[in-house]
């Protein structure tokens, strides 16, 4: 067998029993791997309405067919899949590094973690040998510290580890799973799912060879893509990195600032990617088999946070910077380090602090409520103090650690309106009021507010459409991008390499065939993308989500952009959102309630799942 390892590992955490089942090749062909395969396996192993933090919510770890090869970026991704404690729908979070390729060499396409261990454990996968080991000595440790201790315990420096921090142990709904110190399966709180299973970490060592089905042609393709990786398609990631977006978004007035009170940050120059690179970036490193490298490692050279070292990207910089009105890069970097230390999704963590600051400035949360913190926008000390409280779940941090939706409901007094989220997941760094293709992509994203499920902002930001207009045709655009992004996360390759697939899906189809030996056309691949998105939709319907949840944050629909500039007054009206949703559902072959029709499911070869939506398909 090529590409696929051909095995799925089941681990019963309560008994420690493990078993291996052959990979269902029909699933592999239909759902590829990564998030697609992971969601399909999750569905088979779960019941409707499952509590995300109960033992009955399996945590699936899935690898892609390209993993473990030398193909640029393709050796290195892995996906976690489970029902999200943040969104209460299906969710996935992908991370890169070396963990995924090691898991492939250990001989597994997926690992399904079921039940809950009686006491804290970590999972040690050493090829065929699978054990649960005591994790009492790891409790309270950061993912990075956990990784170091496990490597010492197992006496192997090359063991790869993915772990949760204190936030995951304490079931924070923004907890993430971090591998290799700085790579996070960040969004939707899957670290809490891991924590709810008393599972502190997964360590893996794999010793098997990975051999593509058609080695000579495969290596020719690799050589070509190595050249492409050095070309214009990856320039941004190799140079300033994603932090380049700060000034780009700011100049377009599409950078949510101070919890969406503005769309433009007057101090953006101080926190730009340019300044970050000039003063703080110490090294740019790469994941396994990358051929480009993008990971900007920053070190604070002086001042109160001297010596702080972490990875920095646009989203996290934005969330802890402009979104909180903060213009000090050293404090933002410290905030990022704290998020990694406690194992919190740094995007959500920053957005939550922005929310708390908005509540404070509006008199909804008092200094007393905040444990003595004067949480004005721009107060970088307050950012760090609130992050500490969230990480430890102390005081107000206990409420904030579950995300803005939950915090808004608990705090009340209008705080709900200040909670900028979709389906319970905090927003990311794109002001949706003036990016209406992105707004649709965000609204329909199965895992909630997120740019990584579609990348539809590109049409708006690059000026390929009128970004202030909601019109027919955007549905098709979002659909195609969603299909592509679902495939990228199922292969798994890196989204930063997407531009190197000059021929788009036909390049991807060729790669798939050369590695796996399974013939596939670009059309069939697109269909797989559609199938993966439709599968996520079906699961969300089973879990009670529907059109009502395909919506936008309150401010996006109720507070027009106040800033003087090119997009002043922009907002997304309900009528506009409805038009966009209708257009999208039609392009997907779903009813206007957002339910996949029988015909669509048949076309996608998903008749077997028809029972989930039976009786719900009337338009």
């Amino acid at each position, binding site marked *: 067998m090529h590409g696929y390892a051909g095995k799925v590992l089941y681990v019963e955490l309560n008994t420690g029993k493990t078993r291996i089942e052959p990979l269902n090749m029909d699933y592999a062909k239909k759902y590829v791997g990564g998030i697609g395969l992971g969601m399909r396996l999750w569905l088979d192993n779960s019941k409707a309405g499952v509590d995300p933090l109960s033992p009955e919510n399996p945590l699936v770890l899935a690898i892609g067919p390209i993993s*473990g*090869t*030398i193909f640029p970026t393709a*050796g290195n991704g892995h996906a976690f899949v489970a029902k999200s404690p943040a969104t209460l729908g299906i969710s996935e979070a992908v991370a890169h590094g*070396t963990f995924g390729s090691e898991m492939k*060499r250990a001989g597994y396409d997926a690992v399904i973690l079921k039940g809950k261990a009686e006491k804290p454990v970590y999972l040690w996968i050493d090829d065929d040998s699978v054990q649960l080991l005591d994790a009492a000595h790891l409790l309270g440790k950061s993912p990075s510290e956990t990784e170091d201790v496990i490597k010492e315990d197992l006496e192997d*420096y*090359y063991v790869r580890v993915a772990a949760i921090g204190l936030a995951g142990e304490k079931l924070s709904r923004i907890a993430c799973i971090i591998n290799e*110190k*700085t790579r996070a399966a960040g969004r939707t709180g899957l670290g809490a799912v891991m924590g709810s299973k008393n599972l502190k970490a997964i360590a893996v060592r794999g*010793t*098997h*060879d*990975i*051999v593509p089905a058609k*080695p000579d042609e495969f*290596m020719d393709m690799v050589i070509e893509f*190595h050249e492409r*990786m*050095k070309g214009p398609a990856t320039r941004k990631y190799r140079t300033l990195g994603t932090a380049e977006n700060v000034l780009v978004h700011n100049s377009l007035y599409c950078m949510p600032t101070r919890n969406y009170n503005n769309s433009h940050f007057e101090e953006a120059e101080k926190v730009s990617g340019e300044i970050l690179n000039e003063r703080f970036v*110490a*090294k*740019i*490193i*790469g*994941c*396994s*088999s*990358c*051929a*480009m*490298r993008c*990971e900007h*490692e920053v*070190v604070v050279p002086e001042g109160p946070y001297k010596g702080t*070292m972490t*990875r920095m990207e646009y989203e996290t910089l934005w969330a802890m910077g402009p979104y909180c009105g903060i213009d000090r890069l050293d404090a933002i970097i410290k905030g990022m380090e704290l998020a990694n230390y406690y194992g919190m999704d740094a995007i959500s963590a920053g957005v939550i602090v922005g929310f708390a600051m908005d509540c404070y400035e509006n008199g909804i949360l008092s200094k007393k409520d905040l444990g003595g913190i004067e949480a004005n926008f721009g107060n970088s000390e307050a950012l760090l103090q609130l992050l500490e409280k969230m990480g430890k779940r102390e005081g107000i941090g206990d409420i904030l650690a579950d995300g803005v939706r939950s915090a808004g409901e608990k705090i009340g007094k209008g705080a709900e309106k200040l909670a900028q989220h979709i389906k319970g997941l905090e927003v990311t760094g794109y002001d949706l009021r003036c990016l209406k293709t992105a707004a649709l992509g965000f609204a329909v994203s199965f895992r909630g507010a997120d740019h990584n499920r579609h990348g539809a902002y590109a049409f708006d930001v690059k000026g390929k459409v009128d970004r202030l207009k909601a019109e027919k045709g955007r549905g098709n655009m979002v659909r195609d991008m969603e299909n592509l992004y679902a495939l990228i996360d199922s292969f798994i390759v890196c989204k930063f390499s997407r531009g190197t697939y000059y021929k788009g899906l036909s390049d991807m189809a060729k790669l798939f065939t050369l590695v796996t030996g399974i013939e596939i056309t670009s059309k069939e691949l697109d269909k797989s993308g559609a199938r993966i998105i439709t599968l996520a939709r079906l699961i969300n319907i089973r879990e009670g989500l529907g059109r009502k949840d395909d919506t936008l944050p309150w401010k996006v629909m109720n507070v027009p952009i106040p800033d003087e500039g090119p997009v002043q007054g922009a907002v997304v009206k309900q009528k506009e959102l409805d038009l966009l949703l209708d257009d999208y559902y039609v392009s997907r072959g779903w009813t206007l309630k957002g339910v996949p029709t029988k015909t669509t499911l048949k076309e996608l070869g998903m008749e077997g799942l028809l029972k989930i939506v039976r009786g719900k398909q009337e338009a």
Partner: protein
Amino acid sequence: MVKIHERKFVSADPEKCVGCQICEYICSWTKEKGFNPLKSRIRVVRVNQLANMAVTCRRCEDPPCVAACPRDALKQSDETGTIILDSDKCNGCGWCIEACDYGAIMLHPETKVVHVCDLCKDEGEPQCIKWCPEEALTLVTSDVLAQKARITAVKKLFQEARKKK
């Protein structure tokens, strides 16, 4: 016999190495037609996010690995300085591994005899150097390394002197 000053080996520039492991993948592919870092003759070490470096055989003068082998399974080529293994004699005891200061000679996970970089003698040039996307790997002699270090040090000195002005 090749003199120590002329002996070439693969060296990684830690300033350029990003820890991507492409050298490991291409090495195991070249040697064994499979992607597997454990079968690579060059290994990447990431001490922390800032300290990345690939390490392989330095072709030492009077190589300790050769001296340590109790079965005379290793010898050094007079012509190139390459460490040559007689796999029939090697029983995987690991004395050479213990003797090597660089961890550059390793036990093969399947054959259970040691393996070490031979500069891809069958391919004409080291594939890791050819494939490294960062151009971090070069074939050098110790003289070249010393020259490079001197030049870097002096350049740095003058830059700092200029800054102070």
